[in-house]
């Protein structure tokens, strides 16, 4: 299928070995999105459940794209001349794109499709890049757990301290300033990842 999409045979083989592109994984993502959409079909039409869940899914996909504990051939791969950074990028971009396409498609099932429905895209990018940067210190799964826990904690605290009705902009990440901050965080995370890319070729992290 990847070959039919115009992807070279060697890149297709690298992607075929990506756990987060397996049918069972993508089925799980789709099921989670369905639940998030159902939760967002509330009487107030507030899409907050979807906006909080949607960024976590690409994060989970990226975390299981490549690394110790998620790729059974990681150690052999780490000893090969192809840089871990390159393999990580090939797989992460494919996983991020696939998961995001599913989430974008799902967002059209929200009760009110407007610009606010796209509010999850920048958080999603920031969570994934911060996770990749952290994975130069920790294992990918631990990095994803830290980032996801941080994201959910921010969402819960934001919702719990508000006195009036809960709206999309209750969460700082969905305000304009928050979205700009997330872009900055993504850029910083990419720089950290580039600086520490050699760590991706080591099993002791």
């Amino acid at each position, binding site marked *: 299928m990847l070959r039919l999409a115009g992807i070279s045979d060697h890149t297709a083989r690298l992607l075929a070995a990506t756990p987060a592109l397996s049918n069972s994984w993508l089925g799980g993502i789709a099921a989670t999105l369905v639940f998030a959409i159902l939760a967002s079909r509330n009487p107030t039409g507030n899409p907050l459940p979807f906006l909080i869940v949607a960024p976590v899914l690409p994060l989970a996909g990226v975390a299981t794209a490549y690394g110790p504990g998620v790729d*059974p*051939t990681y150690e052999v791969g780490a000893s090969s001349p192809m840089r871990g950074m390159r393999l990580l990028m090939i797989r992460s971009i494919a996983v991020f794109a696939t998961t995001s396409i599913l989430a974008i498609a799902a967002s059209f099932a929200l009760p009110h499709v407007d610009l606010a429905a796209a509010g999850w895209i920048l958080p999603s990018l920031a969570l994934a890049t911060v996770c990749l940067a952290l994975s130069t210190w920790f294992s990918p799964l631990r990095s994803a757990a830290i980032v996801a826990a941080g994201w959910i904690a921010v969402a819960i605290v934001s919702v719990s301290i508000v006195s009036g009705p809960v709206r999309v902009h209750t969460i700082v990440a969905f305000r304009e300033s928050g979205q700009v901050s997330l872009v900055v965080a993504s850029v910083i995370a990419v720089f950290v990842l580039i600086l520490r890319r050699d760590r991706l070729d080591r099993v002791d992290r």
Partner: protein
Amino acid sequence: MNETTVRIQSVRKHFGSVQALAGVSFEGEAGITGLLGPNGAGKTTLLRMIATVMSPDSGSLLLLGHDPANASSRTAIRRSLGYMPQEPGFHRAFTAFEFVDYVAILKEMTDRRARHAEVMRVLDLTGLGGRARTKIRALSGGMRRRLALAQTLLGDPQLLVLDEPTAGLDPEQRLRFRELISEIAVRQTVILSTHQTEDVATLCNRVIVMNEGIVLFEGVPRELAELARGRVWAAPERDVRAKLSWRTGDGLHRHIGTAPEGAHLIEPTIEDAYLLLVGRTTDEENVA
């Protein structure tokens, strides 16, 4: 005299409070070097460093003339390296061919035709040519072990690092493995770890015995066996003073250590010397 291809000096590694390597030094050249040692001796940590996937806390390595601490040198080493981890993992939905093809791509073989020919060559070498289209999940444990070995042979690497390659192989497969590795090691450097003293005796030009992160012995297998000369006895009865003692098939007890009553000296083996060096005396390891 062969050129030194692996030079390791005063390498140390800690994992938290556990000291995995406590100043290991040795040199390797073309041929087969066997690492012998009990579990936790530091063999896997050392092999991972030679495979460039782990860095030492201190000390230095020079592999094929390159320092793996440097990123570009590390890539140069990896272009001439074949590595089989202790627990090789597989994408089980892949066929044997697809798995080795995947590793070949990681080894920068991008020309499809040449790569596929190379994949079939190493599968044939390991006796898996007829299983190329079989899913990995349908292969036996021994076949998977051979598959893991096959990927190390891609591109005819100068340095082969094999972590317990004979574990789980039946006697015939082990003999075939020895045949294959001994042919390769004429021109290449092979460093392997094993629990099988027989592998070392029959296959290796050099042996390194490790325990608790240090090298206890480095030399040729014959010299290792000589360490036990004068300390291995055959006696009619078991003697409690023996470091290790077990009854053999001929009814006599083989004693390692102090001479028991009515005993006579017998020819030592590598296994005797290994047991003396490592000094393990737990009851479970005494085969009565």
